[in-house]
């Protein structure tokens, strides 16, 4: 049962991301603020830290392709970025302490990195003309606040879920 739970949660988060983005942008004091939900990649980062880097990268690849085809019609963007982020997460964690607080900060930093890379890419292909400072105020900071609230609420659930899976895997090998 736990075996199927990990991909199932990933699928659910993939679908939920867009439901939450229907509420964005938020108007506050006459300014528009964009909140970009990054539930799936946060989950995948947790997977690659606590579970298995390779498997997380595979999930990243599959969901990246789906994301590219379904939402943005530029195949290759998220297809590359999702596994790449998982790779960095899995690689860094070898050198740092795996405390929940540290991994939370690490995953938020990686999401910020993802956002910045995407902004640079869309500037490059001139889909957007938003300068960096405006991007920072309108998108990055609100996005990071929203995602950190989400991660603080659910990070320990991810960890618990992955640990339950690992426990099960260890049991079957014994």
């Amino acid at each position: 049962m736990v075996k199927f739970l990990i991909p199932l949660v990933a699928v659910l988060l993939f679908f939920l991301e867009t439901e939450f983005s229907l509420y964005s942008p938020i108007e506050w004091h006459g300014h528009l603020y964009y909140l970009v939900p990054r539930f799936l990649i946060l989950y995948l980062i947790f997977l690659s830290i606590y579970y298995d880097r390779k498997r997380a990268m595979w999930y990243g690849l599959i969901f990246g392709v789906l994301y590219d085809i379904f939402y943005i019609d530029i195949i290759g963007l998220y297809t590359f970025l999702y596994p790449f982020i998982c790779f960095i997460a899995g690689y860094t964690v070898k050198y740092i302490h795996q405390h929940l607080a540290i991994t939370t900060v690490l995953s938020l930093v990686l999401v910020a990195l993802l956002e910045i890379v995407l902004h640079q890419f869309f500037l490059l292909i001139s889909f957007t003309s938003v300068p960096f400072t405006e991007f920072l105020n309108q998108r990055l900071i609100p996005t990071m606040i929203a995602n950190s609230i989400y991660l603080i609420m659910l990070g320990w659930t991810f960890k618990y879920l992955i640990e339950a899976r690992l426990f099960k895997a260890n049991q079957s090998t014994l």
Partner: protein
Amino acid sequence: MPQFFSNKRLILLLVGVIFLVALISFSLRDRQNASLPEQIIKDTVGFGQSIVAKPASYITGFVNNVDELLNTYDENKRLKSRLEEFGTLQAKVNELKVENDKLKDLVGKKDDLRNFDPIQANVIARNPDQWEEKLILNEGSMSGIKVNMAVLTSKGLIGKIVQTTPYTSQVELLSTNNTNYRVSAVVANKKSEAFGLIEGFNAKRGELVLKRIDSSLPVKKGDKVTTSGLGGIFPKGVLIGEVTKVSTDDFGLTKLAYVKPAADFSMLDHVVIAKRQSISVDGSDGNGTNKSITTETGDQ
């Protein structure tokens, strides 16, 4: 420090990057049409998405209802004051409608740019990274939706269809950054009609930019802006918004107006796609490809 990449991995990475760049440029070139595997994936994901969207939209509906309930008292007071006004307006509209029909009969004019067949659809997804203002609907080419049709809510125009698959379709909102996105519009006040094109969105003001208005025509703050139907595909008379500021354009030759959109672009769940009854041509609302008009007869 161990070696970050072994040789084999480095080659794999390089090949991967080259492949990806090729893939990106390939898919950037033709984004209007989805290939068959893309269509299959879109329809499958769309199916899953529409299942998840249902409970989510119930929750949104509930929250909205509670929100409306809280505002009922104020709203009621305001509406009561407008009710009398409404009665006389209604009588006048009926009168004008009858007269209009009679006159139309007299001249034998059957076709009207205003008439359209509504196709109802639900929003199942929105591009979550929000770099492009796109929505995905749960109806596609099987229910008669075609690229470039107008998409509206009860409040006004919100965008147009940019891509269809058999069971889903993609809407690009008016608030897009895309410079090739134009809507033929008209500013109407009591005296005159001024035509112009909605071109672009001013993100700072959160308003649409209406360009190329003849500078001799009077356009005032508060005038209503509607679609003109002259762009070829959109029906006539769909509300776009209200003029908030008028100025001249960069060259001082034509007027430019900022238009506050009537429809709300966030929290969309139910939309209507307008399928125009009269012949549609590929004009400024479409891609502006100057294709021969006579070959594209549209469907009646």
